[in-house]
């Protein structure tokens, strides 16, 4: 099996992140690596840079990782996490400007076909183009 782009789901709520990941797995299967995280460092609603870094690590693929986020802080913290990656990984991770559930499903579907990171991101972001 050739490598596919990995998907990371980052929500303020762990329940939403997990539920989104469940939907992706049911619709796309297990050929795409999907990792998720939600909650602040205390476990309350919010996001955590270190949990995002862990999720990127577990979804890692040589083809890269696409991150789907819900609200502002999830995006800012994800961008921060990407900057904290080792330099050789930094350019292989993108934060998609797309709705979290639909974006994750679309991105994973595209990734499953072996598409590049840019293609995966473009498909997810079409959802926001309206």
């Amino acid at each position, binding site marked *: 099996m050739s490598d596919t782009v990995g998907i990371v789901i980052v929500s303020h709520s762990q329940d939403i992140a997990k539920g989104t990941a469940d939907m992706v797995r049911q619709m796309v299967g297990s050929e795409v690596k999907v990792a998720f995280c939600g909650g*602040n*460092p*205390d476990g*309350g*609603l*919010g*996001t*955590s*840079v*270190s949990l995002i870094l862990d999720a990127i690590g577990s979804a890692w693929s040589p083809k890269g990782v696409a991150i789907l986020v819900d*609200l*502002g*802080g999830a*995006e*800012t*913290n994800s*961008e*921060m996490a990407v900057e*904290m990656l080792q330099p050789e990984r930094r350019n292989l991770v993108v934060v998609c400007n797309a709705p979290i559930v639909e974006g994750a499903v679309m991105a994973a579907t595209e990734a499953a076909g072996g598409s590049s990171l840019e293609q995966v991101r473009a498909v997810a972001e079409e959802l926001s183009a309206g």
Partner: protein
Amino acid sequence: MSVQPETLKSLVKAAAEQLIASAPELTALDQAIGDGDHGTNMKRGFEAVLGKLNEIGVQPLDEALKTIGKTLVMTVGGASGPLYGSFFLAAGEAMRSRQLPDDLADVFGSGVGAVSARGRSRPGEKTMLDVLVPVLETLKAEVGRPDLIERIRTTASEAVARTAPMQATKGRASFLGARSVGHVDPGARSSCLLVHAVCNTLEARK
């Protein structure tokens, strides 16, 4: 001028304690126009900073600033973590090649620039930049004046008040549109609290 370990520790301690004590106020402001977590997020971040006070206290200033920044990034849990974290990380990086007090405005300006880049935001959008940028301008214009500390304190207070009539176009408050008008921005307020804590501590040590 190099910053003495005791001065550095007292500055960090004062700033952290001020933010922790003000958590209820920041949360109340954020409940009005945001998602109500700014107080608890900043409190968590600065409690973690306080926990590293002894480590920070013996570091050179550039390293100390970076430690503060990294700690906030990893512990705050909201957008303010990367925003404040980027401020301290960039200020620390700038500090490596600069000297205090001559380059203070430069170092502070590097931090402000990082906040602007991280938030893709500019002054006038009802954010912490509406305090940080006026403070930077005062630093640039008034450096060397005997009443610099007093001027900075006043600049910060007046700048927070000016965020009340602004309409938010960045951050969570932007979802409220015109309804964000009339409330002081919580991030602007926390920036002001930090600036005041530093000013008050420096003044007391004079």
